[in-house]
């Protein structure tokens, strides 16, 4: 790895909350030079259309993750040392859908990241993966109305649209179909 040093900015995991009361979910990552840059970039990359009310970013080096397989082959992960305090626990429960996320399921008091991971494993033994980070590592969007209004409110009005919607010249294809101006499907053997 040392022969190919990573010259990019640090990676930040992005956690998005879709609505009040919903868990923050890990939705992807951004590279950014500092915490504020990470939040602003995350907003542009991950809150363009879907609704959101809050964003957190956590620097990759502040995260500790593990799968059950990794804990079997490298149990020493559970001894990872670090500062004691409040840790957030994240759990990945399924990989059945095309997009499955790590949900933040709550916080625990832990002696360090390894201890937090051990607690996550104990509380959620069936998880496909666990993720923990100290509370102080999370950079959060402000909760004041001004931020919510400028960061999150506009996206609510930008629903997904089919590509054809954006035709700026001429008429929508659906309009032409209704007017009988588009050729229909070739008749099938049965229909003929």
């Amino acid at each position, binding site marked *: 790895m040392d022969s190919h040093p990573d010259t*990019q*900015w640090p990676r930040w995991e992005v956690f998005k909350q879709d609505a009040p009361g919903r868990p923050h979910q890990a939705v992807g990552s*951004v*590279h*950014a*030079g*500092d915490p*504020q*840059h990470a939040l*602003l*970039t995350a*907003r*542009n*990359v991950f809150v*363009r259309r879907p609704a959101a009310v809050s964003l957190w970013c956590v620097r990759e080096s502040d995260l500790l993750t593990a799968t059950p397989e990794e804990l079997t082959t490298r149990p020493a992960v559970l001894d990872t040392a670090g500062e004691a305090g409040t840790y957030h626990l994240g759990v990945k429960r399924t990989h059945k859908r095309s997009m499955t996320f790590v949900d933040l399921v709550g916080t625990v008091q832990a002696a360090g990241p390894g201890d937090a991971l051990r607690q996550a494993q104990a509380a959620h033994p069936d998880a496909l993966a666990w993720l923990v980070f100290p509370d102080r590592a999370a950079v959060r969007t402000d909760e004041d109305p*001004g931020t919510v*209004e*400028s*960061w999150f*409110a*506009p996206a609510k*009005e930008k629903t997904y649209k089919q590509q*054809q919607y954006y*035709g*700026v*010249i*001429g*008429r*929508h*294809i659906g309009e*032409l179909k209704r007017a009988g*101006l588009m050729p229909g499907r070739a008749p099938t053997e049965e229909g003929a």
Partner: protein
Amino acid sequence: MTAATEALSTAQTQALIRRLTALADDEIILAHRGGEWTGHAPILEEDIALANIAQDELGHATLYLGLRTDLDGSDPDRLAFFRGADEYTNTRFVELPRGDWAFTMLRQFLYDTFEALWLEAATRSSYAPLAAVAAKAVREEKFHVQHTALWAERLALGTEESRRRTQTALNELWPHAAQLFQLVEGEAELVEAGLLPDLGAVHARWHDLVTRHLTGKCGLTLPQAGAESAPRTVHTEHLAPLLAEMQRVAREHPNAEVW
């Protein structure tokens, strides 16, 4: 014709059309310059971010031209894709080539701050359709300012190279930025009537805010160069090639039903 448009005199309507078109033209051209970075920005995340900002600006142009449609029935697409450089009324400020990342971010910052302040004032317009559009667009613009203000700061306080580039961009852009605050014909009467924001007051607030950020926070030096005084109908040689590219598909297929 809505109740709001019926209340306007012919002269007021014409002046309002001029202001709305000037705003839309600035947005369309700046959005195109932003879009030119697609696939070329310094990092993937910023590529996406700038494309999103450019798309927002284009959305604002659509809002402004929609207001114009209410006044004269004009077709926004015809205005965007079938007017030549001699008919566009954008500032030279937005049509200058995109330059480097420092130039792009600094221009966007100066423009976003202007637009956010103008829109904020426009939310108090007595012309209800404009006040409604402004209330919608100002939210996004406030976020744009945050993003581009951060970039101006990071670049100005970054390396010697990035500081030099940012100062060079400021030197070049500063005189042109003044053109954003020129009144269009008949605008003073609309301001008097409470229909449009007072550009002079917006200019004062803009000057205060960008000066504090650029000199106070970023440690840049404001150039002494005089203000650009060209009217919005006089363009640099850079606009025509931009429009040629932007309008190419529309003009090659003027009667396209579907594309």
